[in-house]
């Protein structure tokens, strides 16, 4: 979707503000949002692509005005409402008004180390790749209303395949719960001038990961 999250190449956001690496959070509530977001994932209602899409679907002004943990919180609330585990009136009352549904899937504290260590690998058996390292490709003008991982700045651009990663879960399908639909995944390297115009630095290259349905031969 052409949402507020698709920030690559946009102007007007000002300077980066570096911080000391000891600073992990800016408020204690951010820690609880981190923990709740990961813990609620264990309920099994959504996958990583659907949770990213929930963040992208926040109203643009909200998304751009929020810290990242606030984005996570708002998306988590919306997902829990979507799946009926939390109701608006409960958030207003700040109290439970109906029992939980998938209580049997609650992530217990003792399972946390193994769940975090297992992660969620995205590689799957899938179709053989059509492209090889060194092949020239052009990204499609792919702009679905749903979730996609082709950034807008890299649409319709010519690049070269620099790595193959096997087949990975295809986010455009997975975010809609239409199956994992594994597709060959590539690293595509672009000359910055092909992305950002002739004023760009000739000694600057940008790469993305792109699934085969984002690509045409060039």
């Amino acid at each position, binding site marked *: 979707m052409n949402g507020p999250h698709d920030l690559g190449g946009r102007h007007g956001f000002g300077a980066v503000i570096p911080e000391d690496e000891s600073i992990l959070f800016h408020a204690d509530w951010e820690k609880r949002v981190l923990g709740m977001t990961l813990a609620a994932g264990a309920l099994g209602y959504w996958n990583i692509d659907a949770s990213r899409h929930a963040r992208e679907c926040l109203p643009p002004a909200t998304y751009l005005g929020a810290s990242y943990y606030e984005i996570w919180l708002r998306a988590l609330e919306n997902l829990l409402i979507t799946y009926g585990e939390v109701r608006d009136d409960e958030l207003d009352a*700040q109290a439970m008004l109906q029992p939980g549904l998938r209580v049997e899937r609650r992530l217990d504290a003792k399972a946390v180390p193994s769940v975090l260590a297992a992660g969620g690998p995205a590689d799957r058996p899938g179709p053989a790749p059509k492209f090889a390292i060194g092949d020239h490709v052009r990204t499609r003008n792919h702009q679905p209303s749903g979730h996609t991982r082709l950034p807008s700045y890299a649409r319709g651009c010519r690049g070269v395949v620099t790595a193959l990663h096997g087949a990975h879960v295809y986010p455009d399908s997975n975010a809609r719960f239409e199956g994992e639909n594994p597709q060959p995944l590539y690293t595509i390297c672009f000359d910055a001038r092909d992305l950002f115009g002739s004023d760009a630095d000739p000694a600057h290259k940008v790469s993305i990961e792109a699934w085969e349905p984002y690509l045409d031969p060039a």
Partner: protein
Amino acid sequence: MHDHPDHDNEMDDMTARVRALETILVEKGLVDPAAVDAIIDTYEHKVGPRNGAMVVARAWAEPEFAQALREDATAAIESMGFVGRQGEHMVAVFNTAEEHNLVVCTLCSCYPWPVLGLPPAWYKAPAYRSRAVREPRVVLSEFGISLPQGMSIRVWDSTAEVRYLVIPDRPAGTDGMSQNDLADLVTRDSMIGCGVARPPATSGTAA
């Protein structure tokens, strides 16, 4: 509402909102507050950029490990015990005298948690996400880094589940240092590409 001048019981809006959601989820039996604590503890105290620094130090000290990182970073990093969420598919990119590497996630906040821990706020904020791909040299200047004239720059936008770890150049004057001491020179930002490794302390300087 707030009769007491000391405001002891006042919560800011976000704190109240988060507490409300956690209260509801815990009452419902959907979230174990001890699990939330355990997740926080993991990323506050157990998993952070020291892991990545140990990977970098070993790559500097052991050419065969550096080669293993080039060939299969996921396996090489796993061999040091660093595995899990947001590090399932790792790629290590090596800075050279000719090319500098910089990592970003323009679409969200993808970051190699098992080796770097949680991403800093700036990594997830619009300024970095919008500009790292378009004007990386200007972004680097905001970190106090100026690349030599003629050095090329490659920006890696993490658009899939592949996660990147930058292996910065080894500083001069570090021959014979232990991997532990080498790791002390490796900053988090240098492993994102927004910094360089620290020079070693000059010999003879007393603490």
